[in-house]
């Protein structure tokens, strides 16, 4: 089986202006959504109490929320979680912070909640102090920044600074759009979604490197080709691989999304978005930006050696 019988000759770089516009629009929309909606931070980052309940039959979250509000928990947020029988009750710290209660108060609160919800079975209780949450949020941001810097340095060493800048911009582009989508749809962003964002950085970089590797090789092979042509050619040559790998990765990530249970929903969703955006950005952001930064074959050649080889 083959996707393409012969090497394709799609002029990817011809659309790079449109792609740039699309990227800028998506990027800006993500930032706007983040500024307006904020991010629906998960318990890992906010601190508070989260209770996972399961019912023998399908449960209606809004009804449960109403019951809880009547029972004196106006701050309770109830969402269905994975299956229709499971719900997640979040008591994010507001004025009356459950995280600040002592043990007696908290167990009283738990029994009040369970009393208000007949039929519910307690599956999991998470309680996280606010300091831990804040720390995790700042550590997470640091981790993203250090990841970007670390990989940028590696690419600058192995290839060229222009490649490094091109790929890093692509890498910033991907997480921002993922987080933007999470923000727009009010999807909870927890620690494991953060792990997915970092994984996407790794994945997207994989794609970029495969193309860059080919660019380097082609520059060495074809002495007279110009950068735009080489970039196009390299993307075309690696196209089958790009599609194949994206397909394989999407298969397993969809398996995780549908079968992995509610705990992994944020993770697999971030990966699904990341794989699509990452594949696109490897071609259009990393590739075209490197061209725009004025890449020529000289940047990738080891000059003295060539001189020596002359007869």
């Amino acid at each position, binding site marked *: *089986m*083959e996707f393409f019988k012969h*090497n394709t000759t799609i002029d990817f770089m011809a659309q790079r202006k449109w792609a740039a516009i699309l990227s800028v629009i998506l990027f800006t929309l993500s930032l706007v959504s983040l500024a307006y909606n904020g991010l629906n931070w998960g318990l890992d980052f906010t601190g508070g109490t989260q209770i996972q309940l399961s019912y023998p039959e399908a449960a209606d979250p809004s009804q449960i929320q109403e019951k809880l509000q009547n029972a004196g928990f106006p701050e309770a947020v109830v969402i269905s979680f994975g299956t229709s029988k499971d719900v997640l009750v979040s008591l994010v710290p507001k004025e009356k*912070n459950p*995280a*600040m209660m002592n*043990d007696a108060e908290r167990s009283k609160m738990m029994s009040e909640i369970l009393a208000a919800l007949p039929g519910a079975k*307690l*599956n*999991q*209780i*998470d*309680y*996280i*102090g606010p*300091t*831990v949450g804040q720390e*995790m949020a700042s550590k*997470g941001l640091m*981790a993203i920044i*250090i*990841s970007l810097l*670390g*990989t940028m340095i*590696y*690419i600058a060493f*192995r290839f060229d600074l222009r490649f490094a800048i091109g790929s890093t911009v692509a890498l910033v582009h991907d997480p921002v759009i993922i987080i933007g989508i999470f923000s727009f749809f009010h999807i909870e962003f927890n*620690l*494991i979604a953060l*792990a997915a964002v*970092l*994984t996407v950085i*790794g*994945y997207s*970089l*994989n794609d970029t*490197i*495969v193309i860059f*590797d080919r660019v380097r090789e082609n520059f060495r092979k074809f002495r007279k080709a110009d950068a735009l042509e080489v970039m196009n050619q390299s993307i075309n*040559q690696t196209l*089958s*691989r790009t599609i*194949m*790998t994206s397909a*394989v*990765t999407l*298969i*397993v*990530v969809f*398996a*995780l999304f*549908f*079968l*992995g*249970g509610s*705990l*992994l929903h944020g*993770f*697999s969703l971030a*990966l699904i978005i990341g794989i699509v955006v990452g594949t696109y950005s490897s071609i259009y952001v990393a590739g075209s930006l490197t061209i725009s930064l004025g890449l020529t074959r000289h940047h990738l050649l080891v000059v003295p050696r060539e001189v020596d080889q002359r007869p």
Partner: protein
Amino acid sequence: MSAISNRYPLWKYLLIIFVIAAAFIYAAPNLYPQYPAVQIMGANAAVVDDKVLNAAEAALQKADLKYRDVQLTDQRILFRFTSTDAQFKAREVIQQTLGEQYLVALNLANATPAWLTAIGAAPMKLGLDLRGGVHFLLQVDVDSVMQQRIDGDTRGIGQALREEHIRYSGITRKANNQIILQFNDKNALDDAYSFVNRRYNEFTWSKQDNTLTGELLPEAVFKAKQETLEQAMNTLRNRVNELGVSEAVVQQQGESRVSIDLPGVQDTAEAKNILNKTATLEFHMVDAEHDAALAYREGVPPPDTHFYSYHGQPILLMNDIILRGSSVVTASSGFGEDGRPNVSVRLSGTGEAKFTKTTAENIGKPMAVVYVEVKSTPSMVNGKQVISYQTQRDIISVATIQSALGNSFQITGLANPNEARTLALLLRAGALPAPVTIIEERTIGPTLGKQNIHMGVLSIEVGMGLVVIFMALYYGVMGLVADLALAMNLVLIVALLSLLGATLTLPGIAGLVLTVAMAADANVLIFERIREEMRRGMGMQASIHAGYERAFVTILDANITTLIVMMILFSLGSGMIKGIAITITIGLLTSMFTAITGTRAIVNLLYGRRAAKRLSIGI
């Protein structure tokens, strides 16, 4: 191009076979089922023998609890059950029957054959999200220990200077790591300067006008904090053992935190009550010379004494501590002749001499046992969480010294048997060096754990299955070769995770699933390259050779950057995402072996000979 050989030397094949065989052996323990078990061990040197076994068996029979089998080995009895329900009930029944002399703990016993255990093979540990349990994150107040230490040093330096007849006008502690000495004349300052530099060299000393400032070296600060944390972890481990959880994980997290995983535990109240108690005992002499009631009305305690309240009446205790809880070796609760609860204590080591001497000198005089507990209360100040600590001291008993107390005696005056039990437990397990506060707590029900395992395994099976079919359809025989490598990769990862003693969590399983895709990518890169070379008209052997050769650099580059990201992810420290980082890191490393060396070996076997005509790679 003439000398293209697609053959591996024999040693390479042998190496591959060896690695794969080892992987299968070390991954094998995961195939054996694990049973909920109850483990009995002796506390305080109590002997575990047939008698204990018979007693436990009789107790289970009486309670009508069926068990799978039982083993008595090396001072340890292990009952295995088929359900966690029976396990929980059995633990209670056995503990009641055997009493406190024995530690009865929940355990998970695996049926790994002895020969596998003998070569160090063991199944992966399952994280709390896969088997249920409680997770705590505790904040240890290391600063308070630093403060105590500097306070101690301040007193010590003052005393040493007095002994050396160097006159100083003042000595104070500043912040948590500075001591400031004040002098009236220059000579004394110089003498003191050379003296402290010699005797207290963990400080850097500086002179300015009439003051001498000593600052504890950063290394010393770090060391002191680390020691505190390690001591706290030790105590916590002891307490966890006392709780009856045999597979608990107590780990340092960051500079001042300890994470505790208690698999199988569902009742957090008891665990919390025991884990974060900074309780200890102090023995003080009662000041019998002054009238406590009178002094209390005047509001001024006599020198070297302190007010306490005992049965609602004021009482004066001497400040001098004649014995601390840390000198206690063993403690067990029981009942005295009067039928009231008591704790029998045995001492050894440092504190004993002073205690014996003091009690011998004070026969007929009253002595008080003080229960010291540090309570922490978190509160919000300006939107930030602040933890404040209060030390609470309560007299639990005042008794007249009947004779010089040796290394064993009884503490009476406890309110109820439960209090006696907790006190004995805390004395046995040791006191925490610093107050601790629980700042994170996660409870995962056992059914959820089972469900998580089921879903995790299902997503591996389905994800892997689909990829296997897809690869075979797209790349033909070569796809099947890659599929074999994918399966081998999974076995290798499981083997390495088991060998490293890593804990498998649901996010870890997600990492494992992702690794399947990443490992497949390496083969996709190689095969696409081979196809390209063949389309260009290169011969089969040359194409195979070039495909592997050229794709290798790309695979390496791509994997190294992913590894950089994974290392950063790992350093974030949270157990949940560490799982992803570990499995992906191991998976990438092993996939380099299986996807490159492994598939090449098979390809060489299949197509390396001259006789092979057509390469089945889907074109």
